[in-house]
């Protein structure tokens, strides 16, 4: 395939790169105890929450930014970032939502009203930190399901928050998790009571809007015994000249027989071909399969961000619990992604499955980094991992770094990985059948990602496929 062609195809403009023009209220840049008190005050938090934030902040001050990932970027000046931005108006009902915001969501393809009517998706949209609107809350409440912003949860459900927040990702787990714990602005809280199957897909759309603001959202999902929930998260950010930091934390807890499905489409601004303006995405996502027979499934489609540092993980504590990780990561332009998962087997007969598909194009660097750790207690545990990489163009890189640790003689780990380019034979075969080059490449890439895309909920899968084509637009892949 001609390089020019591929370049043209991959060089599509960032379609979501528009800016919403609404008045912002922003904290002055810088991070100190004062900033944290400011955030906590703005959010009207109880003292115990502020105390936790300060504790995290003091721990963070003593920590060092990690540099083991295969990504390079100029040093981040944590004092030049603004840690708080909220739309000025307080919004209570959908009618009060700024039409600008609603229009923006429409552009993003998530009109609240439409989603409500058509898909039955309850959307908790987070625009620069504050939860703008929560829909469907009432309907869900009838089932005992709590679906609200994390700020509301701190106010209304302090017992749940105190019990579960930081229980899976301790506040000092890592540098970025500690930073998040100190300054998190908002996020989503979900609680599914015993035996309840959440009847609809829950969804949150994250979007970074204000310049120079970091986005530090925090998500906590608790699935009580025998419950089920499927949660979708989508992310995007407008084009910028300077890089922005995003350091989110997600904690999932699945009790006995519970199942949590967590899907992400990450489409933050990737920056330009020189890496200007892209998002730094340093995310800690971890799920705890606390009870027997519980299950957590992570599915991610990562097409955006300049730097991605992200390892959605499962701690398989309950006997017979299951962890799954399905990932498609595309890096093009100057993007660098270091992503993968950790599967920690503790309980007996625990199972984990890892399917990772990396695609590198242009100057993109794509790294799979994954840990499978089988403790001595995990009798009969099983893991299977499959990590494939596809290279498009000769300036990109594909890297595979698995860590496979086993201490159990009755356990089995199996890992396979291949790296290849789109073969000329495959391309030619399709073209000989009359399929144009762009469509042929797109077909091969979709085929390559199929095992992951098929795991996404229906509406999300459609979006992911469209996004994949958009990313590879011109439209090869």
């Amino acid at each position: 395939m001609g390089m020019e062609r591929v370049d043209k195809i991959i060089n599509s403009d960032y379609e979501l790169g528009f800016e919403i023009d609404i008045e912002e209220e922003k904290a002055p840049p810088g991070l100190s105890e004062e900033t944290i008190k400011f955030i906590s005050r703005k959010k009207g938090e109880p003292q115990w929450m502020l105390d936790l934030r300060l504790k995290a902040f003091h721990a963070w001050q003593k920590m060092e930014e990690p540099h083991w990932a295969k990504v390079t970027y100029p040093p981040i000046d944590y004092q030049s970032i603004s840690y708080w931005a909220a739309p000025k108006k307080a919004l209570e009902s959908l009618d009060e939502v700024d039409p600008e915001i609603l229009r923006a969501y429409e552009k993003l393809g998530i009109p609240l009203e439409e989603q409500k009517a058509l898909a039955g998706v309850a959307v908790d949209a987070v625009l620069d930190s504050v939860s703008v609107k929560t829909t469907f809350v009432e309907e869900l409440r009838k089932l005992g399901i709590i679906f609200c912003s994390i700020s509301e949860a701190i106010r209304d459900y302090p017992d749940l928050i105190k019990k579960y927040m930081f229980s899976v990702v301790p506040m000092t787990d890592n540098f970025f998790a500690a930073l998040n714990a100190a300054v998190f602005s908002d996020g989503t809280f979900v609680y599914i009571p015993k035996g309840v199957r959440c009847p609809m897909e829950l969804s949150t759309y994250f979007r970074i809007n204000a310049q120079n603001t970091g986005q530090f959202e925090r998500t906590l999902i608790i699935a009580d015994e025998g419950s089920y929930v499927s949660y979708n998260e989508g992310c995007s950010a407008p084009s910028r000249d300077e890089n922005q930091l995003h350091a989110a934390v997600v904690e999932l807890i699945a009790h006995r027989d519970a199942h949590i499905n967590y899907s992400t489409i990450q489409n933050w601004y990737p920056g330009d071909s020189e890496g200007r303006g892209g998002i730094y995405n340093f995310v800690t996502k971890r799920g705890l399969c606390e009870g027997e027979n519980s299950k957590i499934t992570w599915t991610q489609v990562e097409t955006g961000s300049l730097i991605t540092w992200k390892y959605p993980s499962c701690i398989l504590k309950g006997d017979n619990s299951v962890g799954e990780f399905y990932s498609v990561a595309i890096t093009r332009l100057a993007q660098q992604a270091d992503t993968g998962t950790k599967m920690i087997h503790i309980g007996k007969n625990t199972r984990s499955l890892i399917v990772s598909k990396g695609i590198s194009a242009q100057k993109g660097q794509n790294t799979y980094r994954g840990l499978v750790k089988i403790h001595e207690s995990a009798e009969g545990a099983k893991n299977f991992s499959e990590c494939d990489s596809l290279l498009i163009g000769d300036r990109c890189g594909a890297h595979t770094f698995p860590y496979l640790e086993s201490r159990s003689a009755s356990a089995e780990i199996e890992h396979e990985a291949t790296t290849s380019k789109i073969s000329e034979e495959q391309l030619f075969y399709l073209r000989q059948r009359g399929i144009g080059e762009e469509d042929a490449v797109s077909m091969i890439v979709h085929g390559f990602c199929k095992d992951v895309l098929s795991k996404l909920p229906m509406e999300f899968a459609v979006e992911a496929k469209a996004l994949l084509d958009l990313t590879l637009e011109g439209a090869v892949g």
Partner: protein
Amino acid sequence: MKKSMEIRDLHGEINGKEILKGIDLDLLEGKVHAVMGPNGAGKSTLSKAIVGHPDVEVTKGEIIYKGENIVGLEPEERALRGIFMAFQHPVEIPGVNNAYFLRTALNAKRKFLGLPPLNAAEFLRLLREKIRELGMKEEMIQRSLNEGFSGGEKKLNEILQMEILQPDFVILDEIDSGLDIDALKRVSDAVNKMRDGKRTFMIITHYRKILDYIEPDYVHILKGGQVLETGGIEIVDALEREGYKIFGEEQ
């Protein structure tokens, strides 16, 4: 008689090495042309040059098809004009569903012909019918393209695609290789059914066997990148008796 394809003084290189050294060949509409020759004669290179495979660089000459020189056209442009190649080694494409692929190809062709696309249901009906005719297993609709197919299944799948796409000019590239006698018969029957007096076939083969099942109208012997001899089935008989040496081959 009307020519379907006219190849004039065709020179072609692979990796800078000239393989085709002035091929002249007329392929007549509705006829079956067998192209034979020893290893390295240029048979596969010729077929690759016709379908526009990137490995072959045509340095001189013309391939006139339906009155148009197709040298320089993209592979898919040639395909849409009705040229179909049944590959010797059909490539496996993981994750790409057989039916989805074939519908995309068919609708590309229908678009080219100015016809509306077939929807999934219409297409499936057509596909099922053809699969039944060919005596194939229906489950292969849902499998990935050529993935995990046996040698015979792959060749049958090539024929299935041919049935669906209804090309005007068909190249069968060593379709007989790796087939047992039953599979060879099934493939040949399917090909014979498609002989309708208008469709042109070019059968590339090393062995005579397949020509017992698909009787050629003309046989061309290739050697050293040129057409050495053209005749009827009788030259194959001579070949069987004497080997390629009667055409100057020293083996």
